């Protein structure tokens, strides 16, 4: 295992310490239980937006705490959902009197722990809503399974709902908006390499030099299918086609195209994928009116990429463009 770490046990603690030291004007890091809040939390009269999940997906979620996005993030151990006490404390810390929205990625652990946290907070009289993000078309949805995973759309939901909260929407409105973003967003990812979970010390799976995994999630798990390595254009097509069919996205739609690095894939390659995705969409009469390209929801150092497509309307577009000021995302301010 080759990583810039001191010990597997301290990865999360030291990393969020670093985040806090780097951006003291934006975030405050609380330890034991661990959570990251806006430096000015709680913001009175504003709905609090809380997310969280296992670590290893940086900048998500800690890097998205700040004005116009999250009020708090709860980092779990690497790839392990955080615990209810973290979420509960974070919820209390950001409740400015208008209630708190939990944005939860659809993983059994995350969902159950957030449920327990919401129960704790409600027992103390707080108003809490939770919206589960499940946008990964690689996973077949069914009542009898855990359903789809929450992946790239989570980041877009955090930005858009964060903007609405900043503008003073109610908790109900925030939850409805988050459901809407989730309903209009679809994602799919692939891996060229496995990642190495620090406490494991070796790759989660072995992938031969000439093979790739298609339909992966963000936890280093194998994908739906392993196959021979293909060209960037073919891979882009394989990721985008199921996304396009699933909603479906149609001729005339406006979309936000989000091409994401799984961590180890550098910018030069991401833009090759972006180029092909843009071409496919344009050929179908779908207008890419917003673009988002970079490592925003990662799997440690995994090489690979995911594509997220969000159908935009005026409301979503305006909220996407609203100012945001977080360690990892900043514009308009």
């Amino acid at each position, binding site marked *: 295992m080759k990583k810039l770490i001191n010990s597997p046990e301290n990865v999360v603690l030291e990393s969020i310490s670093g985040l806090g030291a780097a951006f003291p004007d934006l975030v405050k890091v609380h330890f034991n239980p661990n959570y990251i809040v806006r430096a000015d939390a709680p913001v009175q009269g504003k709905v609090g937006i809380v997310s969280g999940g296992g670590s290893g997906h940086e900048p998500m979620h800690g890097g998205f705490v700040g004005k116009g996005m999250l009020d708090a993030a709860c980092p779990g151990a690497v790839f392990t959902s955080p615990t209810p006490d973290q979420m509960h404390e974070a919820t209390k810390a950001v409740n400015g009197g208008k209630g708190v929205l939990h944005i939860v990625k659809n993983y059994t652990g995350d969902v159950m722990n957030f449920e327990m946290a919401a129960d704790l907070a409600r027992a103390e009289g707080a108003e809490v809503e939770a919206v589960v993000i499940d946008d990964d078309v690689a996973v077949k949805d069914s009542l009898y399974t855990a359903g789809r995973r929450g992946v790239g759309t989570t980041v877009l939901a955090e930005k858009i709902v964060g903007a609405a909260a900043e503008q003073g929407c109610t908790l109900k409105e925030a939850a409805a908006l988050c459901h809407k973003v989730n309903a209009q967003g679809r994602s799919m990812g692939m891996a060229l390499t496995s990642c190495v979970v620090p406490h494991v010390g070796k790759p989660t799976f072995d992938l031969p030099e000439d093979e790739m995994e298609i339909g992966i999630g963000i*936890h280093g798990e194998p994908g739906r299918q392993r196959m021979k390595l293909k060209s960037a254009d073919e891979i882009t097509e394989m990721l985008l086609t199921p996304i396009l069919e699933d909603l479906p996205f149609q001729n005339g739609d406006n979309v936000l195209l989000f091409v994401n690095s799984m961590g180890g894939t550098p910018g030069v390659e991401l833009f090759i994928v972006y180029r092909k995705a843009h071409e496919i969409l344009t050929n179908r009469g779908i207008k890419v009116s917003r673009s988002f390209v970079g490592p925003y929801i990662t799997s440690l150092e995994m090489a690979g990429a995911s594509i997220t497509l969000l159908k935009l309307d005026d409301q979503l577009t305006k909220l996407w463009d609203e100012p945001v000021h977080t360690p990892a995302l900043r514009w308009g301010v």
Partner: protein
Amino acid sequence: MTTITADQIIAWIERYSIRIAEQKEFLTKLDSDIGDADHGANMHRGFQAVLVKKAELQGKDIGALLKIVAMTLISTVGGAAGALYGTFFLQASSVTTGKTELTPGEFLLLLEKGLAGIVLRGKAAIGDKTMVDALHPAVKACRRAIGANEPLDQALAQAVAAAEAGLQSTIPLMARRGRASYLGERSANHQDPGATSTFLLFQCAAETLTTNH
């Protein structure tokens, strides 16, 4: 009639903490194949935190000490296992409040409540390839044996056997709950990590609850 003392419950928890430490790599290996390679680390983190609180457990009634175990797991494990094992022990604690020892029937109630909590929380049915596949048959074996007034050591021996059979039954299954379900058909031919840790929990129960320490 044999009873189970609070000290035996502590011994059970302690033995299990050690067993988890021994089996940590194996559990993680199982979770690498069909999950995210953290089940061993998760369980180990939680039960090491429980071990640290051993002094606090001592002298408490069973409900109180199980509540400490539950809260410690809930606040240190995370993931599916944290919520599920935390719920198991929280429910187990709720029916043992104030008790310093348990009759076999009371111990059965502890298990039943724990199982019900896990099912309520995780919504898994038998055959979904989860810890329920080991837990449910183990509880069922206890229910039968204790109902038939068989001695506790025999009841637990049968529970261990049932848990092991349940664990083996997960191997061919395609997962329908938890992270392994994302793999679809690729989840088959792998042993479920959570069912494995549940089997170990019964194994440790059999080793500790029927002898005095």
